[in-house]
C-alpha cells in the first residue's frame, strides 16, 4: 500500500470515526436521566427560572437543531483562527468555552501521562527482562509477584500511602497540586526580538534576500544529492524560495506586531527549563514525583508481565543462541537482539496505556488534587454538562486515534517485515 497512502487513509478515516463518536455521545447524554437545567438550582426553582435557564443553555430548541448547531460550530474556521481551538460549545455549567477549558486542563494531564509512562515502561520492561533472564529463580518469582501486586493495588491507596510517608512523615514532598504556592508557575521561553522597523516593503525586500539565501542552500544540498536540475530541481528551489520568503515575512511581521514570542508547552518541568529557572524546576518536579510514581508503579505491573512473557518466548529462539555462540556480549544479545524482537506487543500496550492516560487518570488526579482532564470530566458528568462531556469525549477519541496511528507507523519502523 505504501506508507504515505496508509497514513493518509488513516487520517481521513479519523473524521467519520469522530463524527460517529460525537453523535453517539450527543444522543446518549440527552437520554441519561438528569437535567443540566435543574442542576443550576441548588435549592428551589420556580418554573420561570427553569424556563429561562433552558433558553439560556439552548436546550429549548429541538434536538436536530441543537445537533446541527453543534456540528456547524465544530467546522467554524473563524472561531479556530480567533481562539486557537475548535468551537466545542459553551459549558452548560460555567458558560466558559469548552475548548478553552479542555486545553487549559490538558497540559497537566499530558505531563502526568508522559512521566508516568516513562516510569512505568522503563521499570516494567527492565524488571520483565531481568525476570525472563532468571527464569524460575527466586528473583523471577519476586518480580512476578511485584507485577501482580502493583497492578492489583488500588491507585488511591498507593497514592495515600505515598502522601503519608513522603508528605506527612518525612515532609519531603508536597501532598497535592502542580507546584507549591510560594512559586509562580513557569511561563516558558520568551523571545524578544526587535525587528528592523521600516514598514512592510522594507521587510518584504529583506525577506527576499533571506529566501534567496535559503534556496541557495537548498540548491547546494540538492546538487550534493545529485538531483537533476531540468525541472524537478528548479521547481524545488523555487518552492523553497517562496516558502522561505513568506515564512520570514510572516515571522518578522509577527514580531513587529507582538514584540515577543512566547513558547510555553504547559508542562511545568519543560517550561521551567525553557525559562532557565532552577527553583521552579525543582518545585514542579517535587510536586510531580508522587503522582507519577504512583501511576507509574501501578502501570509497570502490566509491562513486567508482558515483557517477561514475550522475552521468554524470544529467548528460546535459535537466533539468540546463535548470537551468543558468536561471542556477543550478554547485554547486547538481551537488549539488542531479543528485546527488539519481542518489543512489538509491548509497543501496542504502551500506545494503548498512553492513550488511556491522556484521557485523564481520575483517581490519581483526585488524590493529588492534580488539575487535569480526568477530574474535569468527572465533575462535568455529575453536572450533566452536555457540551463539556461531548467535547471531552471527542478529544479523547482524537487522542486514541492519533496514538494508535503513531503506534502503527512505529511498527513498520521497528519491524521491517511489516510492510504497510
Amino acid at each position: 500500500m505504501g506508507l504515505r497512502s496508509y497514513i493518509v487513509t488513516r487520517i481521513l478515516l479519523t473524521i467519520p470515526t469522530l463524527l460517529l463518536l460525537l453523535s453517539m455521545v450527543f444522543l446518549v447524554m440527552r437520554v441519561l436521566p438528569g437535567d443540566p437545567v435543574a442542576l443550576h438550582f441548588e435549592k428551589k426553582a420556580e418554573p420561570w427560572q427553569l424556563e429561562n435557564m433552558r433558553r439560556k443553555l439552548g436546550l429549548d430548541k429541538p434536538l436536530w437543531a441543537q445537533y446541527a448547531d453543534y456540528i456547524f460550530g465544530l467546522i467554524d474556521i473563524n472561531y479556530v483562527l480567533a481562539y486557537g481551538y475548535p468551537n466545542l460549545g459553551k459549558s452548560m455549567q460555567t458558560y466558559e468555552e469548552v475548548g478553552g477549558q479542555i486545553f487549559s486542563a490538558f497540559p497537566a494531564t499530558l505531563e502526568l501521562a508522559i512521566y508516568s509512562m516513562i516510569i512505568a515502561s522503563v521499570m516494567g520492561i527492565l524488571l520483565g527482562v531481568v525476570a525472563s533472564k532468571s527464569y524460575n529463580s527466586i528473583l523471577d518469582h519476586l518480580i512476578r509477584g511485584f507485577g501482580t501486586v502493583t497492578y492489583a493495588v488500588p491507585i488511591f491507596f498507593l497514592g495515600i500511602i505515598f502522601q503519608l510517608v513522603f508528605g506527612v512523615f518525612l515532609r519531603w514532598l508536597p501532598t497535592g497540586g502542580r507546584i507549591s504556592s510560594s512559586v509562580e508557575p513557569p511561563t516558558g521561553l520568551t523571545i524578544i526580538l526587535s525587528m528592523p522597523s521600516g514598514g512592510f516593503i522594507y521587510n518584504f525586500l529583506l525577506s527576499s534576500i533571506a529566501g534567496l539565501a535559503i534556496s541557495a542552500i537548498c540548491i547546494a544540498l540538492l546538487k550534493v544529492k545529485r538531483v537533476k536540475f531540468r525541472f524537478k530541481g528548479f521547481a524545488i528551489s523555487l518552492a523553497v524560495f517562496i516558502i522561505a520568503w513568506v515564512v520570514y515575512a510572516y515571522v518578522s511581521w509577527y514580531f513587529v506586531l507582538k514584540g515577543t514570542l512566547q513558547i510555553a508547552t504547559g508542562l511545568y518541568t519543560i517550561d521551567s527549563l525553557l525559562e532557565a529557572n532552577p527553583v521552579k524546576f525543582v518545585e514542579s518536579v517535587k510536586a510531580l514525583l508522587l503522582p507519577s510514581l504512583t501511576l507509574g508503579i501501578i502501570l509497570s505491573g502490566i509491562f513486567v508481565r508482558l515483557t517477561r512473557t514475550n522475552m521468554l518466548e524470544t529467548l528460546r529462539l535459535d537466533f539468540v543462541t546463535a548470537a551468543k555462540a558468536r561471542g556477543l556480549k550478554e547485554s547486547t544479545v538481551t537488549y539488542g537482539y531479543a528485546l527488539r524482537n519481542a518489543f512489538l506487543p509491548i509497543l501496542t500496550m504502551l500506545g494503548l496505556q498512553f492513550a488511556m492516560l491522556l484521557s485523564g487518570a481520575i483517581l490519581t488526579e483526585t488524590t493529588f488534587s492534580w488539575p487535569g482532564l480526568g477530574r474535569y470530566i468527572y465533575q462535568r458528568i455529575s453536572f450533566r454538562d452536555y457540551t463539556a462531556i461531548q467535547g471531552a469525549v471527542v478529544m479523547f477519541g482524537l487522542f486514541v486515534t492519533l496514538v494508535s496511528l503513531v503506534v502503527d507507523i512505529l511498527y513498520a519502523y521497528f519491524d521491517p517485515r511489516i510492510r504497510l
Partner: protein
Amino acid sequence: MEKIELSIAVLVLIGIIVSSSTMYYTATVISNVSTVSSDVSKLAEAVANLTLTIGNFSTVSLEAIANLQAKLAAMEAALAKMTLAKKTLVVGTTDSVELTLDPAQAYDYFGWCILQQIAGTLISVKPGSATGTDFVPELAVSWNVSEDLTLWDFNLRQGVTFWDGTEFNATHVQYSFDRAIALITKIPEGAPAGLGYGDIINRTEVLSKYKVRFHLNFPFSPFKGILACRASAIVEPTYAPIAQVNYTSGDPRASTPVAFVGPYFLSEWKRIAGRDIEIKLDKNPFYWNVTSQYPKTEHIIFRFYSDALTLRLAVEAGDVDMAFRHITPTDVLDLEDNPNFKVWWGTGAFIQYLDFQEKRAPFNDTRVRVAIAAALNRSSVCQTVFLGLASPLYSIIPPGMLGHTEAFKKLGDANYTLTRSLLKQAGYNNSTKKLKFDLWYESSGHYPMSAEQALLYKGAIEAASGGIIEITLKSADWASYKLNRDNEIMDAAIYGWYPDYLDPDDYAFLYWATWLHLNYNNATQLALYDEARATTNLTRRTELYAQIDNIAVEQCSVVPLYVSGAWAVTTPNVDGIYLDITQDMRYWLIYLK
C-alpha cells in the same frame, strides 16, 4: 527549456519584483515626508505647551511637598509599628467557587465566602452571634423600619471610598439593588432570583446622599437577614455594568479591587477548567475599617483540594495553616487527639430531613407517615454515623434559632408501641399485608454519609415495626436524584437544607415546599407562616412557629433528622476563629500568633 532561457526568465522576474517594490517604496517615502512636516509643527506646539506646564508646576511650593513627605514618613512609621507577626495565612478547602463572584449570580457557599472577604453589605451579623440575628452596622450606621414593615430606611456610613476614589453613597446602594433585580431574568440561577429579590423589593429610593429607603411589596421582618447576605453586596457601577458580567479569573475586573469595598481585595485567582487552583486575598488599604487591627492578617492564600482525605493529609503535612470544609468526622476526631493541631467547634446550620410522597399509597395515609417518624432513632445515627458530631433535630428550625422547639419529641425515638399501633390502625400486619416502600438516598456525596444513614434508618424502622415494614434502599446521583424528586418517583427520600439567611422564615417553609413535589398542602401552616414574617414581635413569632411545628408533628409531611456541627482545624498558633451559626468564616478576624 534550456538553462540560459531559464536563468533569464528568473532574473527578469526578480528584476520586475525589485523595481516595482522600489517604486512603491519611494511613493510611500514621499507621502511619509509630507506627514513628517506636519508632525514637526505639532511637535513644536507640544514643546511650547510643556514649557508652560513646567512653569506652572514650579509655583507649587516646596513647603507642600515637605508636608506630604512628613505625612508619608509618619504613616510608614505607624505601619512599621503594627504588630502583624506573621503576614500570610494559608487555608485549605475542598470547596471551589462555582461560577463567578458577581453578587447577582453567585449562589454557592464558597462564592459567598470570598465575597464576604472582598465585598461589603449594609449590615452584617455580629461574629460569634448565637442566634444569627444580631445585626451590626457595616456600610450602614443606623436604620429604622416603618410600623408596617414595608419601608426600611438606612443611614449610610460616610467617608468610605472605592479604589478609584469614588465616595460610597446612596446611589451605589440603589444601583446595586436595581442591578440585582434587573438581572434576575438573565441570571435565573443567581441568588437574587433564588431569594426572590424581585418579589420582595418594590424599589430602592435615594432619600439623600447618605440615606436610602427600601420599599417592600409586603411586610417582611426577615429583610435584615436578606440585606446581610452576599447577594446584597454593594458594587461600583463603573465596574459592574447593568449588563450581565461574569467575574471569572480571566476578567481583569475580578482581580482588581475596584468593584467592591471590603477588608480584602482579590489579588489573584487561578482557575483551570472551571475549578479553582489558588485564590490570593490581600489587605485592602481602602477598607473603611482599616487600622492596625483589621484585617488581622495581610494575605490569605486558599489552596484547593479534591477531597476530604487529601485535605486532612495536607493539614498533617503542614501544607496549610487552616482547613475548613470539609474534614470528615473520623479525621477531625483523630486530629483533635493530636497535640500538633487545634480543632475549633461551632454550631451548624445544615440540616437533613426525611420527606414522603403523598400522591399515592402508602404515604397518602397520615398514620403511616407518623408511624415511620416515630420509628426513627436519631441519636443512634448521630452517634454511629457522625460520631457525635451531629445532633438529633426535633424541629425543622435548628437550635439556636428563634422558633426552635422540640416538637417531634412528642413522637418519641424508636417508639415501637406507637409505630405498631398506627400501622395496625392503617391495616398493615405481619402476615397478609406488609408495608413495603422505597427509601431513597443521594449517592454522589452531595450530602454527607448518605448510604450509612439510609442503612441505619432502614434498620431502625424495620425493627420498630416488628417485621411489618420492608424497606428497599435505592440511590441515585445528585442529578438523577433531583429529577426523581421532580417526577415524584421516590416514596421516601432523605434531603438536606442549608439556609441563605438566618431566620426561621428560611426553614419553616420546608414542611410544605412546592419544589419538593410532595403533594402536601396545608393552608393553616401557610397562614401562620405569612403572619410570622409580617411581624417583628419576637414572642408572637415564636408562638407562630411553635404552632407550625405542632401541625407538622401531626402531619409528618417532612420529618427533621439531624443538624450538623461545624468545625475547623488549625495549627496551634492560629487564633480568632468564630464558628457561629452563620457558617461564615470571617478571615479578617483570624491571625497567627
